């Protein structure tokens, strides 16, 4: 029955294809190639055999596979790889992407529906790429009287702050972007930026509902900052060091801290839910009360960036929970001695690192599922109940926990020569 609209003409179709090809060529030649050359010249390339590796030699080796393995092995241990790929941004972004997809399917299953289904043959696994492309192609609308510089800066700041926090998390022994010995305090310092960004963005978008949302974000995160820090502090008392890798090692030495400090783990879980603005504490973006809270005026890629930042934050907080309470990467070695026959001992390929990465990912994914659960079962709470729980109930609980930690130390159970320390 359907008939085509008369106004379709083949000439127009060919015109648009040519127009597209023209723009692709322009972008590749003016932007793509120079970028590759700049990266290749500045990245410290290893000497190949005797003579130094020049970019042109590098490009030829892409063709010859025998040369790629040593280059790849060398690149893996440079700092650029650590920051960009493994324990840094790409690993976190990969986790964030998987979390988005799992959350939509998990929530759908709990609500007796299908969730994304049609994009990508089996159960809609390509839905995420489709959403990303859609957000990139959407037009970015900036409110008329908005404060443009801050309006642009805030989403970028949001993602970079979330990524900065991801850099401090130790994923495997030796595999951490920045192994500073005041690790935990640095994470809290970075988390202090989020309320600031939320308020800046909502105030810059110059309309009433986002402004109320921004204020609520401010109240909420400040109210839950204190129990958040104190509950982590009791872990520092037990572990004796602020360095995150040190904390994990002290847990490997004795047992996981979640058995000693269950209340602190619960308080940390609740306040990280509030930090993430997830459902029970969803007030900054309460869509039925204040339209969409502080992200009302976002559209297109600005919304995409803020969503990426939120899910990066989710990964960071889940990883922090694992590092502080579930013993980081500790877990039985499950990989065989020689993963690649005849090749042992190299930094990344030995079985200790691989099983550490495996255990860390499994535990983080488990904690992320715990974060996703409340969205399915609980409504949003009101601002005064939120502040009441934050200031009165959680702070008291975290102080009780501080007392438990001190008792464990002075009772000689944990700490330098404690009973349970192996």
């Amino acid at each position, binding site marked *: 029955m359907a008939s085509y609209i008369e106004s379709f003409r083949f000439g127009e179709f060919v015109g648009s294809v040519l127009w597209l090809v023209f723009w692709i060529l322009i972008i590749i030649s003016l932007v793509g190639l120079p970028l590759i050359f700049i990266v290749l010249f500045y990245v410290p390339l290893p000497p190949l055999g005797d003579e130094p590796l020049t970019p042109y030699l590098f490009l030829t080796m892409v063709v010859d596979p025998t040369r790629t393995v040593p280059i790849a092995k060398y690149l893996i241990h440079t700092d650029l790889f650590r920051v960009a790929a493994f324990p840094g941004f790409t690993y976190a972004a990969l986790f964030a992407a998987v979390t988005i997809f799992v959350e939509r399917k998990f*929530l759908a299953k709990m*609500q007796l*529906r299908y969730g994304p289904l049609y994009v990508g043959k089996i159960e809609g696994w390509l839905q995420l790429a489709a959403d990303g492309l859609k957000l990139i192609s959407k037009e970015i609308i900036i409110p008329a009287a908005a404060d443009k510089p801050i309006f642009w800066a805030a989403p970028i700041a949001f993602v970079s702050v979330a990524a900065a926090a991801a850099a401090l998390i130790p994923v495997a022994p030796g595999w951490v972007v920045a192994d500073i010995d005041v690790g935990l305090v640095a994470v809290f310092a970075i988390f202090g930026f989020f309320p600031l960004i939320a308020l800046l963005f909502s105030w810059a978008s110059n309309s009433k509902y986002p402004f109320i949302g921004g204020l609520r974000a401010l109240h909420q995160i400040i109210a839950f900052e204190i129990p958040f820090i104190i509950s982590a502090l009791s872990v520092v008392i037990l572990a004796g060091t602020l360095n995150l890798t040190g904390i994990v090692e002290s847990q490997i030495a004795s047992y996981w801290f979640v058995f000693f400090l269950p209340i602190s783990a619960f308080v940390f879980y609740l306040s990280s839910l509030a930090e993430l603005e997830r459902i029970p504490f969803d007030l900054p973006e309460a869509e039925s009360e204040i339209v969409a809270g502080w992200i009302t005026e976002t559209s297109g890629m600005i919304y995409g960036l803020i969503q990426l930042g939120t899910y990066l934050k989710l990964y960071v907080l889940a990883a922090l929970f694992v590092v502080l309470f579930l013993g980081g990467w500790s877990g039985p070695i499950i990989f065989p001695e020689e993963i690649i026959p005849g090749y042992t001992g190299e930094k990344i390929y030995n079985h200790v690192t691989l099983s550490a990465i495996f255990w860390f990912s499994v535990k983080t994914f488990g904690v992320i599922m715990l974060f996703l659960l409340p969205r399915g079962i*609980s*409504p949003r*709470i*009101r601002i005064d109940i939120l502040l009441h729980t934050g200031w009165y109930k959680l702070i008291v609980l975290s102080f009780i926990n501080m007392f438990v930690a001190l008792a464990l130390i002075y009772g000689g159970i944990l700490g330098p020569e404690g009973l349970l320390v192996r």
Partner: protein
Amino acid sequence: MATLEEKIEETRKLGLQVVKEIEEDRLMTLSVGPQHPGSGHFRFTIKVDGDYIVYCDPDPGYVHRGEEKMCEYRNVIQNIPHLERPVIHDSNNITYSYSLAVEDLMGIQVPRRGQFIRAIASELNRQVYTLYWLAIYGIFLGHSTMFMWPAGDRELFIDLLERLTGARVTHAYNIPGGVRNDMPEGFKQRCLDHIRYFEKRLKEYEDIFYNMPLFRQRTEGVAVLSKEDAVKLGVTGSVLRASGIPYDIRKVEPYDVYNEVDFKVQYMKTGDSFARSYVPFLDMKESCNIMRQLLDKMPESGEVRTKLQPNPKGPPGEAYRRVESGRGALGYHIVSDGTPRPYRVKISVGSFRNLLALPYLLVGNKLADMPAVYWSLNYWPVEADR
């Protein structure tokens, strides 16, 4: 600094529809507008002092279609399809009192089996409406599961109504003189299965929504409507029954076969937002057992409709009949002047009467309570504007 009460008094004098922001009174005017996700096709302007609502002025009329004027240009049967438009997912109830009023005017006697089928169809429709209302109440409080479950289970009853009347939502099934077609075969058994499964689902709602401590914290003791105020404001339906007055038209003024069904009118005494959200839930449970009794007592065979002549006419006169719809007493006052077209049709709907309670309850509460209080009034904007 002016106290809250003075601010409420001072702003009550402001009568303008369009409110200008005054710098020094530190109030922010928010238009919970026709597009706001928290209000549907209806706008009310609230003035907010910090987090407290100080002034609320409802401004309905965005979906006013002049149903009453349209009734005067059509004959009695042609009125049915457009009269169900104000609330299409409770269409059997809204046309029920119209049919009763016309039958009073023209002295038509509906056969017994037709009355039973009409009552069953209106009970099914009440479930569909209340589930839709409960779903929106869930998402208003941020509980997305509580939106999906009732919205999904509503399909059970829509499927039944589709088999019975032929259309999913706009049934046009209730005609002066009875119903338009008889039940398809196997309908009774399928109806009983769906009801039995639905009662298991109702237990789940209670676990995940009504007994959820966070939901209780948000609604208990919020916006209490006392018994005297409920009577003074003339509210109706679940809002009235939540304030302690067991008033249900099906029990008080039984129409058709409701006097042969024994059921208990569900009501609560606290009158707060929680009661107003729990009474419709109890009504749904009660409605399940009403449907079972109706299905048992229904005569096996017999006429379902008295056939009227093409342009039915009756003696001049007036009739006023009421029915208990999803949102309370829904009455039609029809004046006929002997011609096939009604001379004047006045539709008195529950939503319009509950609207008066909105500014009364909202003032003094917090901004976050606005959706919880507004939607607990069982207010359907389209029906209130007619």
